[in-house]
């Protein structure tokens, strides 16, 4: 007989003792937090039809989705993300509920990553989705929840804020062709994703200076906003976005989160996924964003709904890693004395139950 493999597939891992505890503790803490903040929990299956993720706003690279066929030959996927399944439920089973829907979840997502990059194929992700609410109020609620989530993880953190519409609002009068806009978009976003763009073959001087200036609009709001105002001059759409961001920042600052905020107006998306505010959260000790979210109205349109939505996902697996936890002390119980042991153990547990 062949020896059974004793190790796990690339990208997966066993969590043993403290690591398992740290993840579960953080998960429980956040779950409680979301319930306290008025979100209702939902769970969806690990397996979904692939089409749930194969919509126009395909925000997950196709090659990273684990897919196979079910017994009817239909393509199914290990869920690579929680937002699409949650939206699916909201627009079907919850379609008659009062709006806005405030939903929270905590369940693993799966990505088929390249080997030898120390990337995890299974990540425990929690988050919230707010579906069908008024824009400024819902966005503010979502941002507050994101800040609370980062805060709960116990490390130094920053929340970065941007707006998916800022770039489009700036280029309205540049007279660029669709191809040129696509080039400019990928050139600017390549600043954030490592050199896929070759060179910018563009003669429009305004576009060239935008490509230079936009990625530099990253820093504390009081530093970035005045410079962004210069770019937005004479463009009411862009000014309106800056007004909104400024209001949001000043409200969050007044509530005591000022030092945790960073504005990044250089966020330009190549895939047309987010439609309004976009944000990402960073924790000291983790080299990538642990929280990522924003307003994503197009996704719901893809499911045939005209409701707006915003939400975020939070990577519990990475966040728990930077905050190791000791296991709590256990109560020593002996089972050597037969039925008396059982009674003793029951008494100990009853006493602990009363103390809680």
């Amino acid at each position: 007989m062949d020896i059974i493999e004793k190790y796990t597939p690339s990208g997966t891992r066993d969590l043993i003792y403290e690591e398992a505890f740290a993840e579960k503790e953080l998960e429980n803490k956040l779950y409680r937090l979301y319930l306290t903040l008025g979100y209702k929990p939902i769970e969806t299956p690990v397996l979904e039809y692939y089409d749930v993720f194969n919509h126009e706003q395909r925000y997950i690279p196709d090659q990273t989705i684990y897919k196979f066929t079910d017994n009817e030959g239909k393509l199914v996927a290990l869920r690579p993300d929680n937002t699409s399944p949650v939206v699916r439920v909201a627009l079907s089973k919850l379609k008659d509920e009062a709006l806005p829907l405030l939903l929270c979840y905590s369940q693993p997502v799966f990505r088929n990553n390249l080997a030898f990059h120390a990337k995890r194929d299974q990540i425990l992700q929690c988050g919230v989705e707010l579906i069908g609410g008024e824009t400024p109020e819902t966005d503010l609620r979502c941002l507050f929840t994101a800040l609370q989530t980062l805060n709960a993880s116990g490390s130094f953190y920053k929340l970065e804020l941007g707006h998916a519409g800022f770039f489009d609002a700036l280029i309205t009068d540049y007279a660029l062709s669709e191809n040129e806009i696509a080039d400019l978009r990928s050139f600017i976003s390549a600043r954030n994703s490592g050199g896929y763009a070759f060179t910018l073959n563009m003669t429009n001087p305004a576009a060239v200076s935008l490509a230079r200036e936009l990625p530099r609009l990253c820093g504390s709001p009081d530093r970035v906003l005045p410079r962004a105002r210069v770019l937005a001059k004479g463009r009411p759409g862009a000014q309106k976005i800056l007004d909104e961001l400024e209001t949001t920042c000043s409200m969050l600052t007044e509530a005591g989160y000022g030092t945790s905020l960073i504005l990044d107006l250089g966020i330009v998306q190549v895939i047309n996924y987010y439609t309004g505010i976009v944000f990402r959260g960073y924790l000291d000790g983790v080299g990538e964003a642990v929280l990522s979210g924003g307003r994503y109205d197009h996704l719901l349109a893809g499911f045939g709904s005209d409701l707006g939505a915003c939400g975020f996902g939070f990577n519990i697996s990475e966040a728990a890693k930077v905050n190791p936890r000791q296991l709590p002390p256990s109560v020593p119980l002996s089972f050597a004395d037969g039925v008396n042991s059982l009674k003793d153990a029951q008494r100990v547990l009853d006493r602990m139950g009363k103390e809680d």
Partner: protein
Amino acid sequence: MLKIALTKGRIEQKAVELLGLCGYDTAELNDKGRKLLFTCPHPTLDELQIVLAKANDVITYVEHGTCDIGIVGRDTIMEMGGDFYELLDLGFGKCRFALAGPKGRDFHEGHRHKVIATKYPNVTKRYFAGLDMDCEIVKIDGSVELAPILGLSDAIVDIVETGSTLRENGLEVYTDIAPISARCIVNSASMKLKNDAVRDFIEALSKQIPN
């Protein structure tokens, strides 16, 4: 403190000069011995901790956030990709990606399936995809120029500085693909968590770079 990964070799030399011009004390880097980790203090800015690494590893360290900043050639960035900010063209280490092959031959002639030898399979794949051409790519680790000479490939995609290696081996550049120079890259989380320190560092560097 900022942690910087520096590509060993030619880029390292120029980068250390540049850091010196910015006012960093690079004494430890000028007298390396067998050490791999160096400290560069500065009279007013945060001190730097510098690691020397191979180009590919610079990207790996920066992408995982074990180093905040990396100094690495654009050739490696284009080949490896990854999630980070590419903030500054440092202006040195200039060369280019080019398609080259035996002198006097018309590369695009005929419909025969072409074989390309390269150290940069991803760059090559993207370049030919852009031309709507599919070709066989063979990964070579050493002197790529050997492949067309020995008849393994029709052409090579490689970095070319002066072109003298090509000439001495009877090869020539068919097409330039992309310009290359040393770049300064920043981990996406460090960009937010250490925003002030990163900005100060980038500003100090850019003041010393001629346009």
